[in-house]
């Protein structure tokens, strides 16, 4: 369904010194810089698959999404989406895809969403009956039927995002690109959007590429995860494999009744202490978990204790700080 080979995108910009003198200088002489946003990226996604594309800011995720949808043209490499080359921008291709950007809106600000939906109906040549059915179906699922006739500018961010999703899916696309669809939303709104995407995917068996900074999105929706760093693919595999990338350590948290002053025993397990030193998070190898936990419970005033496999947030955070770990572990 989605295939890319050695996809590369370079952008050119220029350096400018600050202030008026810098501006005047740049008028006559500019030092151009070429930045490689995506570097030889190869990927294959099958029909019905939903994958999470993760990476820090500036890693190249959005650039990839824009190349996938044909908004920008790659500097080199090949892409095929549902049998089309996106940069050729064929009408049939544009009817097969949808892009949702959490930070941009395709709804008209000054009119109710329903007016924008009617425009989209004409753009995508959606049959009237099918259009009404899809509006009803998605509107009910997202719980926004009573928002359709309210001016978009009067809606909350969460309500607008739900309507953005509806707008993007009205034409029943085969491939959906979700670029941070839950950004800026509160926890309940995030959960609603995730639930909707999950249900929609289950029902329609479409391919979805999702980028998000919220690991909960990835956890809830994706079995496969791709990590992009510095424009290059750093990891491509199952979510469960990713979670064990730093080894089979367990994430353990101890809460104490009083402040703990002697930290020596915890030093070997990469401790993260709370400000008042009454709580510590540790990464403990599976083999040592039992003995060490018993020791802490015996020697310290523990009031709470929890353990979890390495949470994806921690893996991401560690990898972002030390990307070389990927090379060592893969």
């Amino acid at each position, binding site marked *: 369904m989605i295939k890319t080979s050695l996809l590369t995108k370079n952008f050119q910009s220029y350096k400018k010194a600050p202030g008026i003198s810098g501006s005047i200088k740049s008028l006559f002489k500019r030092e151009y810089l070429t930045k490689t946003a995506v570097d030889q990226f190869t990927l294959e996604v099958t029909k019905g698959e939903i994958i999470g594309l993760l990476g820090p800011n500036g890693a190249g995720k959005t650039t990839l999404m824009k190349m996938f949808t044909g*908004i920008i043209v790659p500097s080199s490499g090949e892409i095929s989406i549902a049998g089309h080359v996106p940069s050729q921008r064929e009408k049939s291709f544009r009817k097969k895809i949808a892009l949702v950007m959490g930070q*941009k809106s395709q709804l008209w600000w000054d009119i109710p969403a329903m007016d924008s939906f009617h425009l989209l109906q004409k753009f995508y040549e959606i049959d009237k009956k099918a259009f009404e059915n899809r509006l009803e179906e998605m509107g009910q699922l997202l719980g926004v039927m009573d928002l359709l006739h309210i001016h978009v500018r009067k809606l909350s961010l969460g309500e607008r995002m739900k309507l953005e999703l509806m707008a993007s899916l009205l034409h029943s696309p085969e491939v959906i690109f979700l670029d941070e669809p839950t950004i800026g939303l509160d926890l309940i709104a995030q959960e609603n959007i995730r639930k909707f995407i999950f249900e929609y995917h289950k029902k329609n068996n479409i391919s979805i590429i999702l980028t998000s900074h919220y690991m909960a999105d990835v956890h809830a929706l994706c079995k496969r995860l791709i990590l992009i760093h510095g424009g290059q693919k750093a990891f491509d595999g199952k979510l469960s494999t990713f979670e064990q990338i730093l080894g089979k350590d367990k994430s353990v948290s101890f809460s104490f009744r009083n402040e703990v002053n002697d930290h020596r025993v915890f030093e070997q397990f990469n401790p993260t202490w709370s400000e008042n030193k009454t709580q510590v998070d540790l990464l403990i190898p599976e083999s040592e978990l039992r003995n060490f936990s018993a020791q802490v419970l015996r020697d310290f005033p523990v009031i709470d204790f929890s353990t979890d496999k390495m949470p994806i947030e921690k893996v991401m955070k560690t990898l972002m700080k030390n990307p070389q770990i990927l090379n060592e572990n893969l």
Partner: protein
Amino acid sequence: MKHYLDVYKEFISTNFSVSLSFRTSFTLLVLMDIFFYLSTLLTIEFIFQHISSLGPWNKEQLMFFISFMLVIDNLHMVILSESFWVLSHQIKTGDIDFILLKPIHSIFAIFFRYPRPSSILNTFLTLGVLFFYGSKLSLDVMSWILLPFLVLMSFSLLAILEIIISTSMFWMQEGLGINFLRMQMQQLSRWPDYIYSKMARKALLISFPILLVGSAPVHFLLDHSEWEYLIGVLLANVIFFIVMVTLWKMALIRYESASS
């Protein structure tokens, strides 16, 4: 074609919804247009109180030319004007991304997206003025039949030339200078071709034929023996349409969108 008409109907509908949400602005725009049309006509009236002819044309002929250009201007205001002004912002902010995804030609989706409903009311006014001065000149039947066709050809040539100018925004990003250049070109077409020097006239009739927009059709309507003007408008439409589409394709390849 039906697809485009259906979409355009929705463009009009959504823009009406937006415009009528801001009633005072809507009324002001209608009044400003009327003020512009009246001041243009009164300026010519005033000039002809002091002279009897301007070049080869007398007062009625020049008023016919001016009213022809007012119709073109009104069509421009109704159909295209707003879109030109927002294009630069759309390119800089990446707002154009969603437009490029729509399954319709991007030139249409970008330049025809913001029809200006307030100017539609004045279409009747400008057409009335054109018919008034046309009947004062006692145009023959052929001229009356060709008039709507020539208005459309002139409008389409103006649109093509302005889109060509605006396409440079994809390279330059900042569109203010480009929009002023576009407006200046439009301004040049608002006067008859014969007022310009030989060199300038040649350049503006052939190299960048902005003078063909108004002068050429009016020359032909007033004197059918000047058929070369008619051919010129038709040829310019074809040639510059090809140039526009080619440049547009290059611009879209050049487009880099904006960071999110």
